């Protein structure tokens, strides 16, 4: 049960095959709302990752002690606690970023990806796989946030990694890459429709890649299968 291949499967599911943002399409509200820049996306991605890992871990720990009747309220309580703690910590140490992300930090509670993983995975699996699932799902979600944030920041502001000091302190002061001048950005990329467009394009891209992989796999398998079948067919007819 707890072998290498299972962990590989969990990782592949979280990062690609069952990615919470691109496949499960869960937690789209924060995904669309805060991905205007890389730093916002990273801030929310990290917060979500933290909550997801914490809640999966605790839910898996207590899965035998809590009966089915009260499990949902207990899960929600656990998730709400993690979110509130994360919110307080962000407020204390990354105050400006907290102000930018605003309501979307408390709203992580309602991110269905988190309750979804608690219910669908952590409540049925051991401590280690559940924690790993939290990490991978969180990373998968965060990676999509980052990509969308990056694309929208480049198109809309002409910069990349602007204001990273909000998250990493003064060290990150010089991380900003300016690609083209101010005011030449594509306004629509910064506005909400831009978020939908970029997300849609990413989902399409993922489907194209998946289709390509499937076709290649089929192509590799096909000649063998067809060949043997033909032999058998001619055999029966004659």
């Amino acid at each position, binding site marked *: 049960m707890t072998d290498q291949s299972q962990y590989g499967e969990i990782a592949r599911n979280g990062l690609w095959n069952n990615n919470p943002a691109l496949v499960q399409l869960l937690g789209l509200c924060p995904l669309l709302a805060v991905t205007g820049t890389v730093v916002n996306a990273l801030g929310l991605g990290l917060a979500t990752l933290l909550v997801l890992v914490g809640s999966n871990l605790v839910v898996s720990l207590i899965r035998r002690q*809590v009966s089915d009747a*009260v499990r949902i*309220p207990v899960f929600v309580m656990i998730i709400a606690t993690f979110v509130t703690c994360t919110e307080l910590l962000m407020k204390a140490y990354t105050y400006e970023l907290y102000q930018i992300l605003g309501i979307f930090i408390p709203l992580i509670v309602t991110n269905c990806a988190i309750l979804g993983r608690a219910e669908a995975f952590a409540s049925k699996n051991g401590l280690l796989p559940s924690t790993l699932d939290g990490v991978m799902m969180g990373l998968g979600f965060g990676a999509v946030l980052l990509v969308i944030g990056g694309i929208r920041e480049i198109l809309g502001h002409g910069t990349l990694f602007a204001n990273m000091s909000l998250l990493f302190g003064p060290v990150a002061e010089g991380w900003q890459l300016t690609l083209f001048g101010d005011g030449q950005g594509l*306004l629509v990329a910064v506005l909400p429709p831009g978020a939908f467009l970029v997300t849609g394009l990413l989902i399409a891209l993922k489907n194209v890649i998946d289709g390509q992989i499937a076709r290649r796999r089929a192509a590799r398998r096909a000649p063998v299968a067809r060949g043997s079948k033909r032999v058998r067919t001619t055999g029966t007819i004659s």
Partner: protein
Amino acid sequence: MSSPEDQGPAPPRLTSSIRFNSLVLGLFALVTALLLATTYLGTRDTIAEAEREAAQRSLLEIFPPDSHDNDLLDDTIPVPKPYWSTLGLDKGGDIHVARRDGRIVGFIVPAVAPDGYNGDIRLLVGLRPDGTIAGVRVTSHSETPGLGDKVDLKISDWILGFNGKSLGNRRREDWAVKKDGGSFDQFTGATITPRAVVARVLRTLLFFRDHGGELVKAAKKATPAAATTTNSKAD
């Protein structure tokens, strides 16, 4: 999830499971509450510090630390109620007083331009006692990113154009965006936002010309209290 065996005999099963479940729920509520309380207590001071710093930042941008020697954040007088509407404040606000060696060197007046493109634009207008603008800052707004948000100093330095201007050294017609015949740049694609800001700054200046004397009087009266707060801060 739980098998019938560990629920006890049949008749009291329902009551016992209710009792057990409530116990579990209660226990979890207790543990999570404890956890939250610990985090809250652990971060409370850091959060207060961060909030204070953030509130102070705009004030210190208008009157830099070397231009005054009091605590801008604590040294305040309330905006007199009759003038709330003049400044666009619907819930009142505090005017920060900057002093140096006991002399008043400036005021930071809160004002709200309610006619931004996307609702309220909150401003801080720093004024020297002679009515010259020391600086204007936007503290919160929801203008369109890429267009109207250039009033924010983080995005562009348009707002610095107010520095040093006063009713005395500019004609009345100049207090408007260029499109309306004034001397302030509008932004490409966004005239409403700068128009709202310029109009509100002008009204703040007029308010200060007419009622600045009252503010000076109130600020002078507030000195002892302010001095004690400054001292207690230093301890």
